[in-house]
C-alpha cells in the first residue's frame, strides 16, 4: 500500500478532489499547511514598514491507495494541480506497512 501526499495551491483543491473522484478514489484527507519552497514568501507593508512573510499557505492532500493505483493517483493530482507557475507544489509517494479500518478492524487492502 502507498500513501500519496501532495502539497498544492489552495485554490486547486477542488480540481484535485474532482480529478481523484473521477478515477474512483474513495477517500482522502486534507489539511491547511504553511511552508516555503522556491516560491519563498511574500512582502506585506503596514504603515510603510515592510514585513517579509516567510511561509505561504498551501493545502496538503493525503490519499492511501493500493500499489497499482498509486501511479494513476499521482498523475491525476499533478495534472489537476498544475498551473505552470512557481509554487505549484510537490507530490510524493511513501510505502506504508499497515492500515486498519477502525470501525470493523479490517486490515490491509480490505481496509482501503
Amino acid at each position, binding site marked *: 500500500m502507498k500513501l500519496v501526499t501532495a502539497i498544492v495551491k489552495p485554490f486547486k483543491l477542488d480540481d484535485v478532489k474532482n480529478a481523484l473522484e473521477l478515477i474512483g478514489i474513495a477517500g482522502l484527507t486534507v489539511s491547511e499547511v504553511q511552508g516555503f519552497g522556491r516560491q519563498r514568501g511574500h512582502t506585506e*507593508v*503596514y*504603515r*510603510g514598514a*515592510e*514585513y517579509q*512573510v516567510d511561509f505561504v499557505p498551501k493545502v496538503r492532500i493525503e490519499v492511501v491507495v493500493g500499489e497499482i493505483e498509486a501511479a494513476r493517483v499521482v498523475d491525476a493530482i499533478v495534472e489537476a494541480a498544475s498551473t505552470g507557475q512557481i509554487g505549484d507544489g510537490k507530490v510524493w509517494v511513501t510505502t506504508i506497512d499497515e492500515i486498519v479500518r477502525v470501525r470493523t478492524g479490517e486490515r490491509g487492502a480490505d481496509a482501503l
Partner: protein
Amino acid sequence: MVNTGDTAWILTSAALVLLMTPGLALFYGGMVRAKSVLNMMMMSFGALALISVLWVLYGYSVAFGNDVGLGLLGDPTEFFGLKGLMEDVTTEEGGLPALAFVGFQAVFAIITVALISGAIADRAKFGAWMVFAGIWATVVYFPIAHWVFDFDTDAGHVGGWIANDLLALDFAGGTAVHINAGAAGLALALVLGKRRGFGREAMRPHNLPLVMIGAGLLWFGWFGFNAGSALAANNTAAVAWINTLVATGAATLGWLVVEKLRDGHSTSLGAASGVVAGLVAITPSCAAVSPIGAIVIGAVAGVLCAMAVGLKYKLGYDDSLDVVGVHLVGGLVGTILIGFLATADAPAGVDGLFYGGGVDQLWRQVVGALAVLVVSFVATYLIGTAIQRTMGFRIEEQDEVTGIDTVVHAESGYDYASLGSSGSTAPLSGQARAEARNTEGIRA
C-alpha cells in the same frame, strides 16, 4: 432659562465623544498582535473608568475653576465634587446647564489619556498604567485643559493663559488633546523602551477590520468633538461639521497616495490612519478656516503623517501604534497651519498669513503648540520614570513573549479551539485559585 436646542446638541455631542474611546480601543486593539488585544482595549476602558471619577471629584475644578495664578491652574476646591453645579444657574437667555458642559469636557479628558496608550502597546503593567493615567490626568491634562479651554468671562471668572493671554486658536483640542497626548506618548515610549523584537520581528496588526470599525466610530464621534465644541447648535457648529468631513476625506486621500507612490499599494490600515490624521489636524482649526482651507490642512496632515510614522524605525523609539506620527504630527499641522490658513470669514474671525493677517496669529499658534509639547513631554517623562523605578511599569520579558493578555488579565481575546483544549468550566476552588495565582500564568 436653559436653551433646549443647545442643551440637546451638547448632551448628544458628549455622548458621541464618549463613544470615541471604545472606538479608539477597537482602532488600537486591531493593530496589535492577537496576544495583546485585550490589554490594548483595557487601557482605553481603564481610562474611561478612572478619569470619569477623577473629573467629577476635582478634575473639572482644576480645569475650569477660577484661576489661582498666571493662568496655569484652576482652583481645585471651587467645584470639588461638582458642588454648586446641580442647580440651574443659567440666567441669561440661551444658557447651557453647567453639568452639560462638565459632561462634554469630561469625555475629552478621558480620550486624551486613552490616546497615550497606543505608544506602549504589549508591554505595560495594567496597574502601573492606571496609576500613570490618574497622575497624568491630574498633573498634565487638567491644568493644560485650563490653559486652552477655560476662557475669561464678563462675570469675573479668570481662565487659562493660552486661551486668554496668548490668544492662540485651538477650537477643539489640537494642543490640549493631540499634541499633549502625542508628546506624552513619545515620552512614555522612551521610558518603557522597545518591545522585544521591535524592528526585527513582524508585529503585524492582527485584525484590520477592527481597525476600520474603530476609525469609523472615531470619525462619527469626532463630529461631536468638533461641532460640539461650538457649545451651541449654531452656524459655528455647522462650519466645524463640514470642515471635519472634508479635511478627513482629504487626509485619507493624501495618506493613500503616499502609500501608492512609496510602497506600491494603498492599504486599509493607511485609510484608517489617514482618517484619524485628518480628524486630528482639523480639530484645532475647524472653526478658523474655510472648507477649502480644511481640504489643504487635511491633505497636508495625511501626507506628513504617512511619512512621519516611519520615523520611529529610523530614530529607534517604539511608539507602537504611532501616537507621535499621527497625533503629535497631526496636532502640530492643524495648530500651526491656522497661522497661515485662518480666514476672518470663518467663525473664529481671524486672518492668517495667507489671508493678509501677517504673522501675528502664526507666532501665537507656534508658541501655544510648543508650550504644550514641551511641558507634556517633560512631565510625562518624569511621571513615567518615577513609576518605572517604584512599582515597575513594564512586564517581564518572558510574559511579553507569552502575551500580556493571559499574563496580566488571565484572558484570551479569541478562542478558536473547537476540541477539548478549550478547558473545563469547573469553578476553581479556593485552594486551586491560590495555586493558580502562584503560577507564572497570573501575574498582575
